[in-house]
């Protein structure tokens, strides 16, 4: 039985092409008319892939034809599609679930999407013993890669870096209060990210009180008059600043007296304004952690670099699993055949396993 994968991804097709195949359910058609014994369709915003097994070779064009017939909006000539067979197919899937093939290396959302696709195929009966074995192994690979390498470590966008740092300073963010100074778009995104981590006390201060109220409504916070923001610094844990002031608003002289009496309560300042709103020497105050846009971006890039460094270790884990998987099921580099005993045991597997 041949195991193969046909698909398009962000590497080979633009979003317009990919979105034509979004939301398809072609597994039944692949089995009934395509000659596949087993089939699983994985569709995410970054990829559309068919994983299937067949006794006789199934041409890539045939798979594309079935996808089109299942509702793909427009004809696709097929240049964007790739095809992997046997070990290459297993390698590709393992790389996908490990986040190595993702747009942002190491992202973990893909694992959930693959699990969902597998569940769908399992429930519809499209996933048979070989697909089951392949995907179960893929989930093991993903787990091992995540637990033994740093490929998923570190945030890779400014907003997520800010949230991660807040988590590393405060731990639980639910009881923390945030002051947004200036109603910019990045402030809003960062505030939303913090809100998603449980921050409920969000205050917004802006020269225009109306804009402050608008942003406060968006992030479910409350607006504070601009002349009151200095007093708020005594109470808050996180300050996000993005005003268009020409001179620093937050200086050491201004902040230090306000922080007396809260020695064991850190203050995390995220300065995303250019020019900066916070004087750099504020970072020298005990318990104050100041990050400007450059330092946040540098950390995001550092995280990405760290993830890239980890790809070799992840590829090694994948190669080991592919070799082991092929040894159990393979008869060559392009064919994967479950041994009779394996198939037998698969048919006797508990429903929860299947």
């Amino acid at each position, binding site marked *: 039985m041949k195991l193969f994968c046909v698909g398009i991804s962000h590497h080979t097709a633009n979003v317009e092409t990919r979105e034509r195949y979004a939301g398809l359910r072609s597994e039944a058609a692949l089995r009934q008319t395509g000659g596949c014994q087993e089939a699983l369709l994985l569709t995410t915003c970054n990829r559309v892939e068919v994983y299937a097994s067949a006794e006789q070779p199934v041409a890539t064009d045939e798979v594309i034809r079935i996808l089109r017939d299942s509702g793909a909006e427009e004809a696709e000539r097929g240049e964007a599609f790739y095809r992997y067979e046997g070990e290459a197919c297993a390698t590709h899937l393992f790389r996908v679930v490990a986040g190595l093939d993702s747009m942002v290396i190491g992202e973990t959302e893909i694992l959930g999407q693959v699990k969902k696709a597998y569940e769908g195929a399992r429930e519809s009966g499209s996933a048979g013993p070989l697909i089951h074995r392949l995907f179960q192994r893929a989930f093991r690979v993903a787990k091992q890669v995540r637990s*033994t*390498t*740093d490929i998923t*470590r*570190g945030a890779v966008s400014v907003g997520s870096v800010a949230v991660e*740092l807040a*988590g*590393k*300073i*405060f*731990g639980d963010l639910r009881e923390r209060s945030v002051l947004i100074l200036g109603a910019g778009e990045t402030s809003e995104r960062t505030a939303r990210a913090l809100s998603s981590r449980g921050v409920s006390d969000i205050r917004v201060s802006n020269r225009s009180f109306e804009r402050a109220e608008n942003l406060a409504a968006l992030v479910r916070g409350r607006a504070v008059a601009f002349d009151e923001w200095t007093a708020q610094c005594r109470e808050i844990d996180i300050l996000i600043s993005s005003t268009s002031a020409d001179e620093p608003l937050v200086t050491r002289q201004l902040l230090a007296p306000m922080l007396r*009496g*809260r*020695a*064991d309560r*850190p203050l995390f300042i995220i300065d995303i304004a250019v020019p900066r709103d916070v004087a750099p020497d504020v*970072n020298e105050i*005990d*318990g104050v*952690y100041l*990050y400007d846009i450059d*330092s946040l971006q*540098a*950390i995001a890039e*550092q995280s990405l670099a*760290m993830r890239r*460094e*980890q790809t070799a*270790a992840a590829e090694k884990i994948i190669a080991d699993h592919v070799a082991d998987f092929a040894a159990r099921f393979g008869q060559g580099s392009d064919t994967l055949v479950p041994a009779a005993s394996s198939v037998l045991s698969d048919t006797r597997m508990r429903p929860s396993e299947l």
Partner: protein
Amino acid sequence: MERQLLLGSTLCFLVAVAHTLATLREGVFHPRRFNFFAIALGFALQSAFLYVRGHALGRCPITNLFEVFIFLAWSVALIYLAIGPAYRLSLMGAFTAPLVLLIQTFALLAPIDIRHPVRLNVNPWLEFHASMSMIAYGAFALAGVAGVMYLVQERQLKTHQLHSIFYHLPPLTNLFSALTRLLWLGFALYTAGLVSGFFTGEPLPRVKMICAFAVWIFYGSILQGRHLHRLAPKRIAALCILAFSAAVSVLWAINFVSQTHRS
């Protein structure tokens, strides 16, 4: 036999340290349960050693500096195993194992295991006083370890230089909270040990009393600074390390001058 138990225990801590160093050399820090189990095994062997030695002495084995250090190492491992699971257990183990290894290696190599020529009388108050004080030292040692972890994390956050270990260390506030609890635990045990010292019926050497109270006042001042929010967490973390270093030095001094421990 007892020496082999101690060597086996030291080997376990050495393996935990080597494992940590090996993962650090990979450029990636991976806290794993390995350290926890290595320390747990080391602790079991320490306990066996103390049992065998205690059985031979017919009393709690804190009769010379060698035994004091082994008991201290045992207390550190005990407190770690008791509180470690509440925090990042493998990670705290990565910091704890070197400390225990250092104490135990020193005890094994230094010529300080001098047996008393006569069998010592059993004095329950004295044993309570000594064991409480040693376990308090274990808590203070772990507070020092938490202090080191705090300073490492704080330094990375201040300088914006985030290394692999940053992602494995607990948040600053959690570390500070752990450190504070360990300080309180150590202080309570130490106070109990100090008070029970007056009930031993043994003569109390002046130097020992001064040293013991100096340690008590030092830790009490740190806690007071914490309670009144006068000291920044960073300073408290640094003071915990300094205080434990001072306390160990004082322990040495106490042991040399203490008639109670000598006779």
